[in-house]
């Protein structure tokens, strides 16, 4: 029974979507308004129920599924099986998405109110849930690759959703990049399959390469690892392959928030973690030129992303650049190729999910309520939307890495991993070992940039500038009587949008204050993985 349950989270949403699409074909003939309203109502319950059910199944699996249980759905070819298996690392990812998805759906119901083509939107939104769950549950590289490709397909209609020229361009670029990246990741798959000690691609902590054979063609394999890294790195927005993400912000905010800040990009990072720790194995990669390249690439990405975020005036695009740099935190930690690194990168994966979705949802709430998308338009909104901006402040502080917020915990762990790597590296690999120290510096630079690009938003919200009138002296009492009262009217959105925000903010603070259970669990994974 348990085994069969393993495929449910991936397939249930897909089945649900099929049903929805079929009913949509029939439903579209009913053109009357009342019928439409009714349908919409049903749509809400339907989507909500499916999402919740799926999350419940996921939690059931997370809490009570034994180690090593697996389910082979079918064989694609030879040893390439579509296999589901939930190990600890999968549990982490599954846990994150299973919490985020229902809330995001709740949010999008308010956000998408009044939009046409809700059917399309929610179908693909739901479908993406299934696919992402599939990634979390995949038990071997083949399955991961399959769902990775499916993810591209399931999400590109969502980017295309606004149907504007920009959306067209964005979705096109998204597709090219993703599919192109997958083409390179595919090479990794082939090599892992060929050089695997088990004869298949099933994930094992510590990797499955047959080191004897692999070392005989070490450089080729390292090169392929790099290709696969950058291939999967497309979704994880590593530097040369990052250009799709800022464009993709044309999608509706629930998409940008959940998919382009969490599901899609994290899937990329997750895939890289799987590739690094569970397929190639750190033993093979540690100390190789591939490791340094990967580390350098993520450092460059962090620098680039955080710098560009400062320069960007469009709020969502700024957040997208922030995502670029933060995703590379994960990769940077992963590139330490140590148990600490794996734990740290998973930690940031979890934490960043909450922080970024919270920030995006705040941006979306502002867009939805006021239609403002540029940062210079946000003056004084902090007073009008107190809850939204409160949550934004929490998310921002967390993103910067202020202690007591969740972001600090992950940065702490990443830096710890980097230092440990550097200490060891100095002894074993000479001057290459200095790179991790540089990584910490990069991390701190990025934190500084984060402070700039996030807090400027918050400050604008709370402290709208008052331009000094000609000759006017601000110090005189009453000099500002004629400034418009900025307190009028509460613009906070409805509860369906606020609830997720508040929950996310609470989680951020909660994890920031008490992270031990999480980090201990992650350390266990790290201990296994490397």
């Amino acid at each position: 029974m348990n085994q069969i349950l393993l495929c449910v989270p991936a397939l249930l949403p897909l089945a649900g979507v099929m049903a929805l699409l079929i009913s949509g074909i029939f439903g579209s003939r009913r053109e009357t308004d009342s019928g439409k309203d009714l349908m919409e109502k049903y749509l809400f319950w339907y989507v909500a129920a499916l999402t919740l059910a799926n999350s419940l199944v996921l939690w059931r699996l997370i809490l009570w599924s034994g180690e090593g249980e697996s389910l082979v759905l079918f064989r694609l070819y030879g040893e390439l099986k579509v296999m589901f298996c939930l190990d600890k690392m999968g549990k982490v990812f599954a846990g994150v998405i299973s919490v985020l998805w229902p809330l995001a759906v709740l949010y999008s119901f308010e956000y998408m109110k009044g939009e046409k083509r809700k059917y399309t939107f929610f179908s693909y939104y739901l479908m993406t849930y299934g696919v992402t769950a599939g990634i979390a549950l995949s038990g071997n590289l083949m399955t991961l690759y399959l769902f990775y490709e499916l993810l591209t397909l399931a999400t590109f209609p969502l980017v295309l959703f606004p149907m504007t020229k920009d959306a067209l361009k964005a979705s096109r670029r998204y597709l090219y990049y993703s599919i192109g990246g997958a083409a390179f990741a595919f090479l990794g798959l082939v090599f892992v399959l060929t050089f695997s000690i088990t004869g298949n691609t099933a994930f094992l902590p510590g990797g499955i390469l047959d080191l004897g054979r692999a070392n005989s063609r070490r450089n080729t394999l390292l090169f392929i690892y790099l290709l696969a890294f950058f291939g999967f790195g497309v979704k994880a927005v590593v530097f040369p392959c990052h250009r799709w993400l800022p464009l993709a912000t044309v999608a509706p905010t629930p998409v940008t928030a959940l998919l382009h800040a969490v599901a899609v990009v994290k899937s990329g990072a997750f895939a890289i973690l799987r590739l690094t720790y569970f397929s190639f194995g750190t033993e093979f990669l540690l100390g190789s030129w591939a490791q340094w390249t990967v580390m350098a690439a993520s450092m460059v990405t962090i620098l680039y992303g955080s710098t560009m975020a400062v320069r960007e005036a469009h709020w969502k695009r700024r957040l997208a650049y922030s995502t670029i740099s933060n995703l590379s935190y994960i990769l940077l930690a992963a590139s330490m190729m140590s148990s600490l690194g794996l734990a740290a990168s998973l930690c940031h994966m979890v934490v960043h999910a909450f922080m970024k979705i919270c920030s995006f949802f705040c941006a979306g709430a502002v867009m939805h309520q006021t239609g403002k998308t540029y940062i210079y338009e946000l003056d004084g909104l902090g007073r009008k939307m107190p809850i939204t901006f409160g949550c934004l402040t929490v998310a921002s502080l967390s993103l910067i890495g202020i202690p007591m917020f969740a972001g600090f915990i992950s940065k702490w762990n990443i830096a710890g991993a980097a230092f440990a790597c550097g200490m060891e590296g100095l002894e074993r690999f000479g001057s290459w070992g200095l790179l991790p120290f540089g990584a910490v510096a990069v991390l701190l630079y990025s934190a500084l940039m984060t402070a700039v690009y996030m807090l400027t938003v918050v400050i604008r919200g709370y402290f709208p500038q008052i331009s000094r009138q000609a000759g006017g002296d601000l110090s005189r009492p009453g000099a500002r009587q004629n400034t418009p009262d900025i307190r009028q009217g509460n613009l906070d959105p409805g509860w369906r949008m606020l609830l997720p925000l508040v929950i996310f903010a609470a989680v951020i603070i909660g994890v920031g204050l008490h992270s031990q259970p999480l980090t201990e669990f992650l350390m266990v994974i790290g201990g296994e993985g490397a």
Partner: protein
Amino acid sequence: MKGNMILLLPVVLPVLMGAIALGGKGFRGNRPLLLGVVFTGLAGGLLSTLLAVTGEAKLRLWQLTESVEIGFQLDGVGRFFAVLTVVVWFLAGLYSVTYMTHEEDESRFFGFYLIVLGVLIGLDFSGNLITFYVFYEMMTLTSLPLVLHERSKEAVSAGLKYLFYSVAGAFLALFGIFFFTAVLGDLTFVPGGVAEAASFRGKEGVLLTAVFCMVVGFGAKAGMFPLHGWLPTAHPVAPAPASAVLSGVITKSGVLALIRVVFFIVGPEQIRGTWVQQAWIFLSLLTVFMGSMLAYKEPVMKKRLAYSTVSQVSYILFGLSLLEPTAFVGALSHVVFHSLVKNALFLTAGAVIFQTGWRKVEQMRGLGRVMPVTLGCYTAASLSLVGIPPASGFISKWYLAQGALSSGCGAWTWIGPVILLTSALLTAGYLLPLTINGFFPGGDFDGRELEERKLLGKEPSWQMLLPVLLLSAGAVIFGCFPGPLLRMLSEIAETVL
């Protein structure tokens, strides 16, 4: 949670009251209530701090993550700073009661004012470097609204500059914290430092880099070159009481940070004679000189005071950088004196602005006729800062110079005192003209304008005057009777060096 819960009280009480002041909607139009809350917070903070510092205490709160413990611990340095902070805060708070009548958003000001107090006390009580860092970051963020308070273009850009420099400094320091965590694991403060040379073998280069990063990073808060740029921009745009405490107290948290790092974690022995010490001495002396020069050339009163802060705080850093007991005592006593003096000066400047709207020094001719008592206090404080005996500045500078001469740091032993002396002259040059012009505006001064504006004899209200009086009196009195203070500081110096 283990330990003496009383340590938590002075931290939580002001923060709580501040939150109430911030969050309560009923305060609009109900000033007495607001002031009631504020003074509950201030007085509560004052009393509970005094109560807390009497005993030895430790408190472990909780773990943020495995290696990150939040915990308090009282020691000499902590007590010293906490008492200083809370007293100055109370006085400046008293001053704000009148001063803030001409500013908007009082409740926000007071709210954050109280929260910063709580955070600062937390900073002083911190038992380990990470707790310290936590409060350090929070201090930056909670004091930011004070800088931003006026919301003018200058204020916002100054606020951002403040934020940028502080955060940049904090992150530089964080590099060091990461490093020490990785090497040492536990970062509880131990007088004399926890680091042992053995654990850094092979990594001396990284160690020194990390320490240097921390010196520069924490130095940002103390306005040390090269991260000093924010200070002259940010302090003057805040309301006067805020600039006073920013300049007088918050800059000292940078000093405290360096004391904690160098004397309680790294240990002076690790860096004595290294390039880090040389660089540190150089930077602080450079800042001393540069700050005075810039102050000398600055026409705007509050900015001039801010530059003066840049220079004066670096006296303290210079004293610390010598890693020598006498200089250490001098540095810490200068913490007290500068704190009192600079608060007095800023509050004076605020009073001038409040009463007359004058911002530039040249406008203030004849100030002695407008507010003689205030100007008298200003003069006393200035003399103290210049270091005219028997006022307090003399004591600290004496100790600093003596320490420098006996430190054995090569050329610095004589370069240091020379620069200190030069800077003292410059200090006199930029502070005293106001006194002279204020009391003796000269024959060509036309008093009629003052009469027209009904400014003659217009002293501020007692709430404003009292803190100024007390602070400048303190500055003088400590100079006359420095004995107890110096004894206490020497004890501290003995434990750490």
